[in-house]
């Protein structure tokens, strides 16, 4: 009978055990949103676009945060975090040198690899661009495999846009078109104003041969999916990333259920065909 606390090599002994990683870089994105880069150590951190980690501020709590970095770069673990609760507020205050507990990666990825030869629509609302950024990185890294690549991104105001440097870099490329809209703007904004769906008619894609990756607030995703279906994009080629209360990431704690699905392990990325019957029910 061992009653000494056991020192641990973080790993598979206890799936609820985080590894501790240092913050190496912090960038303020918007008034309430920060991007943190963590150093995963010499082995690096591999993940697929769309997956998430459980991030711990020790003593305060743990939250699910999607991974926002380039899946081709294992040397940095990047998360974009909006301060909405006590843990995310604490995460947003961390500076280089601070320690973050990390468990993951968890969840299903955007199936970029399965879309060869198709047009790609990436549609994001607000913070929804964070989990889509790795998908775009992967699409651009394998650009020749796809037809048209169109990014549609809507934020509330111009100052709420994420990754502004990268947006303009993507806009400078000839092989991807980026459409950005905001809900409201001052007189200095020269871009479109209106909800994300108003930009869909401006994107060039061939609906039956298009795959769409969508992430944003629930209402935005609902109306975007509706418009794409009406245009003839097949429902099994429309992918959405869902959000639920997630406390373990392992499919054990029971909080993230959507009908028979555990969003943490069966999702968060689902084809619309798989979840449509549950998305149309309310309070489910």
């Amino acid at each position, binding site marked *: 009978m061992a009653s000494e606390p056991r020192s641990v090599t973080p790993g598979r002994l206890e799936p609820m055990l985080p590894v501790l990683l240092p913050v190496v870089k912090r960038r303020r994105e918007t008034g309430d949103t920060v991007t943190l880069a963590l150093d995963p150590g010499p082995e690096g951190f591999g993940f697929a676009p769309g997956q998430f980690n459980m991030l711990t501020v020790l003593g305060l709590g743990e939250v699910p945060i999607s991974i926002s970095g380039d899946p081709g770069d294992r040397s940095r673990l990047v998360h974009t975090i909006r301060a909405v609760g006590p843990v995310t507020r604490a995460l947003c205050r961390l500076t280089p040198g601070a320690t973050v507990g990390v468990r993951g990666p968890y969840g299903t990825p955007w199936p970029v690899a399965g879309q060869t030869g198709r047009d790609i629509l990436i549609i994001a609302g607000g913070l929804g661009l964070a989990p889509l950024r790795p998908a775009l990185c992967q699409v651009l890294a394998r650009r020749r495999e796809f037809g048209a690549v169109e990014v549609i991104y809507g934020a*509330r105001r111009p100052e709420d846009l994420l990754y502004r440097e990268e947006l303009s870099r993507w806009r400078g490329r000839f092989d991807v078109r980026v459409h950005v809209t905001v809900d409201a703007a001052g007189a200095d904004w020269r871009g479109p104003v209106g909800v994300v769906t108003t930009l869909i008619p401006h994107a060039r894609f061939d609906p039956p041969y298009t795959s769409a990756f969508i992430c944003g607030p*629930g209402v935005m995703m609902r109306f975007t999916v509706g418009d794409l279906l009406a245009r003839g994009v097949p429902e099994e080629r429309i992918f959405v990333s869902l959000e639920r209360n997630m406390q373990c990431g392992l499919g054990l704690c029971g909080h993230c259920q959507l009908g028979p699905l555990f969003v943490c392990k069966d999702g968060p990325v689902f084809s619309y065909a798989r979840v449509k019957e549950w998305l149309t029910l*309310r309070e489910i």
Partner: protein
Amino acid sequence: MTRLEPLLAEHPFCRDLAPGQISRLAACARERQFAADEVLAREGEEIREFFLIRSGRVALEIFTARRGPLLIQTREAGDFLGWLGLEPHALWVVDARALEVTRVLILPLPCLNQLLEEDPILGYQLLKRFTQGLARHFASMKRQVVNLLHGL
């Protein structure tokens, strides 16, 4: 004259229409009363009816997973609810729920659309009233957007 004709004639949407036009509309119309919280239309369902509200109040809502139904606008006695001139099989983009006992006249779209196609003079009259109503609703929504998004 059917019993619905005077009800139609007294609704603002039909004001000053000729008795013959009223009776053509009445041939399509039926009356219905909704109890409080009863649903007139639900997001995602096909739009099959055009409502003229005689009394009561209807909430237009968008359902959100986290906050439940969000009330965006109400329609009152004298207002219409629905669409004229849309493509067939268009879908409701909001829920419409009675906030109190609400009495409406219902014009089923197949019947109403056929009437508009066959009688362009009546059709033009109704579309004009519809557009004027839309203009009022849009003007109101634009000011709501300013209030909400710009905090004015």
